[in-house]
């Protein structure tokens, strides 16, 4: 009967273990994405990705109907400024912390349609910095590292959206 005790023990721990793994998985996936991206492209700079196809295997479930640009950020050395021309068709700038939470975002949709034709300028600061120290649109990241993802429609003529992403940037905020 000793083997039965072992089997029951393994089954019980394996059942509980899936929840422990589930708890670790989001940070693990983001850390992997961050480390691979950092190694290949560096951080605190914007990288415009090619239109997704079957060879796009950096991030799961890429949309072939979207153009993407991303900035892996690390705020340990100070704030970052993200500047992006806002096109007419669907566009958004989403902020993700290292546990996968989409903690902030701006878009050209709904009540933000007045952004179309402007240049969105966002200062991204860490949790220990004060928004009052910065002018304009300020977003506070809950973690010092994370990912900013720009999405723009790739439906139909994508010239304007591609040009908008190509002209976007993510760089250390200049001292005022």
């Amino acid at each position, binding site marked *: 009967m000793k083997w039965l005790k*072992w089997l029951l*023990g*393994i*089954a019980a*721990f*394996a*059942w*509980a*273990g*899936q*929840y*422990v*793994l*589930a*708890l670790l*998985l*989001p940070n*693990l*996936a*983001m850390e992997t*994405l961050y480390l691979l991206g950092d190694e290949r492209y560096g951080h605190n700079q914007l990288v415009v990705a090619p239109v*997704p*196809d*079957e060879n*796009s*295997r950096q*991030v*799961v*479930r*890429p*949309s*072939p*109907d979207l153009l993407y640009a991303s900035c892996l950020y690390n705020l340990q050395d100070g704030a970052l400024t993200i500047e992006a021309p806002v096109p007419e068709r*669907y566009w*958004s700038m*989403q902020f*993700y912390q290292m*546990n*996968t*939470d*989409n*903690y902030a*975002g701006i*878009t050209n*949709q*709904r009540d933000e349609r007045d952004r179309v034709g402007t240049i969105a300028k966002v200062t991204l600061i860490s949790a220990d910095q004060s928004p009052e120290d910065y002018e304009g649109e300020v977003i506070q990241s809950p973690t010092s590292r994370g*990912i900013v*993802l720009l*999405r723009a*429609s790739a*439906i*139909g003529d994508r010239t304007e959206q591609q040009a908008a992403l190509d002209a976007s940037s993510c760089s250390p905020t200049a001292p005022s």
Partner: protein
Amino acid sequence: MLKNLSKLTAAAIITIVLSAVLLARTIGAGLNEMNLQNGDWVTSTATGTKDANIMLKATVALGGLLASAKKDSMYYRLSTIAGEPLRLNCRYRIEGTDYDANWWSVTAYGWDNYLIPNSPRRYSFNNENLVRNGDGSWVITVAETEQPGNWLPIGPAGAPAWRKLTNHDFDLLLRLYTPGEAYLNTPLSAPLPRVTREACQ
């Protein structure tokens, strides 16, 4: 003593592997209390938010990393029809009209969560590139072999088959960007495309 240590190590390894398999099956089957079922389509309004529970966050980490929150986009996934997993040897029909969103698309993904390799390099249809009927309705045929009209090709996933832990061979993802009120407030009953299995070989 040494014998006991080897037994414990073996048990620990088996436990970790079993935990990973259980988690993969739970996620692959969409077994999560935060999932909302609308027909065969499954969504969650907590995707990308701090309200997501650990299983939903794990699901997002494995199968939807960098998904945005519902006000920006909603995602409905379909991997089974009446409990039957989507198979490569079957032909499926997706029927629909238009949906209340800035734009929407239907994309096929392999079981590995990446776009499916196919020679026409067609991975999705969106609200603008579909060939429609006179009344604006449309039909997409999902199959491995070429079909007339809106053909969404499927085929083996790009990842090696030994890594497959899901029952389905591929799945369909409906994206609704800037979704309307019906999707935000009543996602269980909001209008969605109808997917049926036409034939299997």
